């Protein structure tokens, strides 16, 4: 599997790395009717990035990542609808802080375990949050969800309009900032050591690396990003419901990430893009076949195409390179 980073990596931004942003801006100007789908894609790219950090880079296998997304979503929603803090930047900061706190608190506790125990603990933590969201109806709206989410214009000027223009650009901006930070992290020595943890954890212990500490740190960072993604979700939909914490959407996120390719930043870009566009197009017509197809693709990717879309693109590129 190709991986970025390491001590001999070239860290300049390649021209291909500007493509996603070019595509996003093109979409903004050329496809104004699809901006809400566009914002959704951007949010899921952010969400997938956060999962890739721990899954693809540190090798922490979790089914409970929706805990962070959901927490961020509800924090933003509760601040807006119940407490009256409607400034979107404040909401983002609060959601990020909540994600960070949950990350460091749960990470410090559960990252001493591995395998099924770790998996189970991540599931249990998400279930706890889900139950709280379900029962604390005064705060969260329970099964009906939380509507009446009010958002005041960004910096007092950019209003969230009905066409979703502001929302799209807002998400794009946040994604860009986070992408830049994540990219720095991946190429740093810390990022290299994460890859080491994923590749051979025994060896990392044997070279004196503080493995546990590094895993807690990256888990916290990942939780922060996922919390931000959740808040963006609430802000763009002006609603938050129980599904942000559900297992089906956590499963879908995994599919998106695997589809794109785990362990490389742009897998988190490619996967949600392809998945959500295909879903928007196909799922409405044939909802059951869509679900069946997704399951089949997951099984096929695991069996035959472990690198996902980017892995296939790599192989194609190598083939073309050989014949050229």
């Amino acid at each position, binding site marked *: *599997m190709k*991986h970025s*980073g*390491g*001590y*001999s*990596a*070239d*860290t300049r931004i390649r021209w291909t790395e500007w493509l996603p942003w070019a595509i996003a801006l093109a979409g903004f100007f050329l496809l104004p009717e699809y901006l809400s789908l566009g914002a959704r894609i951007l949010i899921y790219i952010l969400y997938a990035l956060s999962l890739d950090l721990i899954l693809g880079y540190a090798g922490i296998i979790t089914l409970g990542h929706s805990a962070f997304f959901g927490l961020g979503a509800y924090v933003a929603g509760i601040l807006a609808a119940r407490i009256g803090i409607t400034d979107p930047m404040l909401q983002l900061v609060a959601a990020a802080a909540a994600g960070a706190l949950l990350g460091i608190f749960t990470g410090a506790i559960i990252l001493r375990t591995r395998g099924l125990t770790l998996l189970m603990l991540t599931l249990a933590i998400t279930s706890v949050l889900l139950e709280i969201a379900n029962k604390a109806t005064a705060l969260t709206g329970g099964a009906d969800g939380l509507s009446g989410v009010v958002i005041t214009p960004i910096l007092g000027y950019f209003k969230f309009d009905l066409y979703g223009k502001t929302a799209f650009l807002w998400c794009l901006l946040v994604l860009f900032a986070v992408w830049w930070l994540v990219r*720095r*992290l991946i*190429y*740093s*020595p*810390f*990022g*290299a*050591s994460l*890859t*080491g943890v994923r*590749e*051979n954890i*025994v*060896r*990392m*212990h*044997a*070279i*004196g*690396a*503080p*493995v546990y500490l*590094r895993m807690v740190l990256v888990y916290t960072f990942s939780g922060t990003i996922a919390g931000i993604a959740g808040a963006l979700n609430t802000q763009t939909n002006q609603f938050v419901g129980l599904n942000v914490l559900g297992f089906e959407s956590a499963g879908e996120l995994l599919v998106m990430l695997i589809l794109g390719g785990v362990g490389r930043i742009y897998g988190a870009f490619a996967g949600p893009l392809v998945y959500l566009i295909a879903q928007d197009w196909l799922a409405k017509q044939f909802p059951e076949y869509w679900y069946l197809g997704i399951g089949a693709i997951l099984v096929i990717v695991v069996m035959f195409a472990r690198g996902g879309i980017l892995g296939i693109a790599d192989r194609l590129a190598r083939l073309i390179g050989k014949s050229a």
Partner: protein
Amino acid sequence: MIAALETRGLCKSFGALTVAADINFRLDTGARHALIGPNGAGKTTFVNMLTGRLASSSGRILLGGEDVTALAQSARVKRGLGRTFQINTLFRELSVLDNIALGVAERRGDAGRVWRPASAYAETRDESMALLATLGLADDATQRVRDLPYGKQRLVEIAIALGLRPKVLLLDEPAAGVPSLESERILEALDQLPPEIAILIIEHDMDLVFRFARRITVLVQGEVLVEGAPEEIAADRRVHQVYLGEGGHG
């Protein structure tokens, strides 16, 4: 003189099964010491206790005079204890350079940095390259470890340990599984190891042991049978019995 590495009364039992019984062992600075014994004698268990991978049942381990019995693996590594594994434990998908650099960066304290890219840490990279050069691996620096022949992978295993600048180095069967064509490389590498490092080597290959070691400890069923200079061990009848008697080992 303080020993580089010492154990006092080191014991380990799994329930009724005793795998290490009252081992008193001493490794001086600059030592070239071999640990031999029939299969199942407890040699790798002993090494795992020394590094902290396995907790002992009783007894003490001293590294440079300091009691490290309760310390975790990474703490012992920081105090100068390095090891290689019997089965290659490498980052197979990463380049040879990265394999070494990860360890060098840990030692230098740069490994946790998040802002500058790793490739900007020239000293780490240069030091890693220099180390690779001393082992004849400089040309392979950008190769993926898993694309290397097994003998070279074994050398990478040694290189990683050296990158930590250990004061004590535990080599667990460094020549194991290496085809004889490539094993000369390994032997040369062992000969060229810095003289101030105290080295304990576990081996079954007697040629290597007698070529390399200045002292030999024989471990049988978790106990030290005898310890001494190579000529003494070669002449010791008990050692002969252990290897050629009921065990039937050559």
